[in-house]
């Protein structure tokens, strides 16, 4: 469904992404892995349209994403989480989640101000859908808390929930478990595994935690220095010498 074709991105002479091509299949969890600074988040930011690549094409269901502004990416069905959680910190958890549903409402300022029927209906739907996701992530208890006051682990969950509640066709997760406790990491892994079936979407998971990635994904793309160095099933990746070399070379 999502296809990157020969994408290159540089920042003033520094190549962040180099002639990268890969495809994300429908209804599966695809993982994008690589050492720190390999360009993973840059790739995600290209798909989100925060960065415009100098070369290459990005298509989603045959649609050219590079023609769209960042604020319309969610409308084609791509939602994302952020590596360093970018919550709306002074809003409650449930309001953060409601924002995930807001792009679907056609109610404008006037309708909202005068509570016209479509605004009322959207508020009701938004609340219900937010509650469903809160329940899925087991965070109903913090629904009314100001999200900026939450623990980091909770914030990561809200960030994930906000993307999930938008009912995307493709969910982009940027290190959803980074910086959280081992217990939460494991719990998150089960939840992420459930996502494709329960929410009917594909997932692109970025992480450098091999354990998490290989455990939940069906397809793995390995990048280093902005280039793809391997691609395959988790089992194939586990055997790949270049992957092991890249990781050991980078991190030892």
């Amino acid at each position, binding site marked *: 469904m999502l296809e990157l074709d020969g994408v290159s991105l540089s*920042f*003033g002479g520094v190549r962040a992404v180099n002639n990268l091509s890969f495809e994300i299949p429908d209804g599966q969890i695809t993982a994008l892995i690589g050492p720190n600074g390999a360009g993973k988040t840059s790739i995600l*930011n290209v798909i989100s349209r*925060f*960065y415009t690549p100098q070369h290459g094409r990005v298509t989603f269901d045959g649609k050219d994403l590079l023609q769209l502004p960042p604020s319309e990416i969610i409308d084609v069905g791509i939602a994302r989480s952020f590596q360093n959680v970018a919550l709306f910190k002074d809003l409650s958890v449930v309001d953060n989640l409601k924002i995930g549903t807001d792009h679907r409402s056609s109610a404008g300022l006037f309708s909202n101000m005068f509570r016209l029927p479509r605004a009322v209906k959207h508020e009701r739907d938004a609340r219900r859908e937010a509650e469903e996701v809160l329940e899925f992530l087991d965070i109903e208890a913090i629904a009314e808390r100001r999200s900026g006051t939450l623990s980091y682990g909770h914030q990561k969950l809200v960030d994930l929930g906000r993307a999930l509640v938008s009912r995307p066709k493709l969910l982009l997760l940027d290190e959803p478990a980074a910086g959280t406790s081992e217990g939460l990491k494991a719990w998150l892994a089960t939840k992420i595994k459930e996502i494709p079936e329960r929410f009917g979407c594909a997932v692109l998971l970025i992480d450098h935690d091999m354990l998490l990635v290989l455990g939940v994904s069906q397809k793995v793309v390995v990048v280093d220095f902005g280039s793809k160095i391997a691609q395959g099933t988790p089992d194939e990746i586990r055997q790949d010498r270049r992957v092991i070399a890249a990781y050991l070379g980078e991190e030892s």
Partner: protein
Amino acid sequence: MTLFFQLIVSGLGFGAVYALGAISLTVIFNTSNVVNFASASLSSAVALLMWLALVRLHLSVVLAWLFALVAAMVIGAVVEAAFLRRVERSSLIVQIVMTLGLLVAIEGLDGALYGFNPKTLPHVIHGPSIAIGSVFLDRNDAFILGLTLVLTLVLYLVYQRTRLGLALRAVASDRDVASLMGIQTQRMVSLSWAIGVLLAGVSAILIAPSISLTPTFMENVAVFAFAAAVLGGFGSLPGALVGGLLIGVMSNLISGYLSNNLQLTFVFLMILLVLYIRPNGLFGKRVMSRQ
């Protein structure tokens, strides 16, 4: 055509004052990343202290200047240490509102201490205007212009040629890195506030004789100084100088040909237009941001 050139020349005095104000804003902004919206009240306070020294305490001109300039630097350093440092790590809104709160508080304090009745400061230089061909340059304006150019040059040389200037520039480009290099960044920020208020204070003392001296008299001047800094791209000293002179000349042309009341309106429309077309100012560098 003579009128046109005359308007240009007689706009230079005010232009130089706006330039000094813009340079003051730039010096402070570069190290502390704060746009000093309290500038108008701080510079008014310095001019009022000058009035206190000269008119009330009957100090000699030299002593009065010395007193005012030292007071300006102390005020700058104290304002930074006591108030701005407290919100150093706060959001932009909080920093902006802090300087606005100081603006109101200091003007209010001066109002309570000196009253709002206009006071007069004498011109620094007296004498007949200087003839340049068919146009005339007011002697006091010439002095203001000359002093501004000298001050800008000195400041520029300090920034470019001395160790202190290097330290100030290092803090301006990246505070954390500067700190790692062993530069006492906090002291540099204090110093830049001291220099900034000094320059703004000088501009207020120079312009006060031409307009009435009150606790709020610099507000309108400050707007032109902000406009000049915006034109100059908020960061470069030469940009601020050119921006100030440009605004001075332009507003004088507007008041000469259109209306005295609409100077500010046209300058406002101009900066609105400039910022709409170039969000980083006329001479500003494009900053590439990575999210």
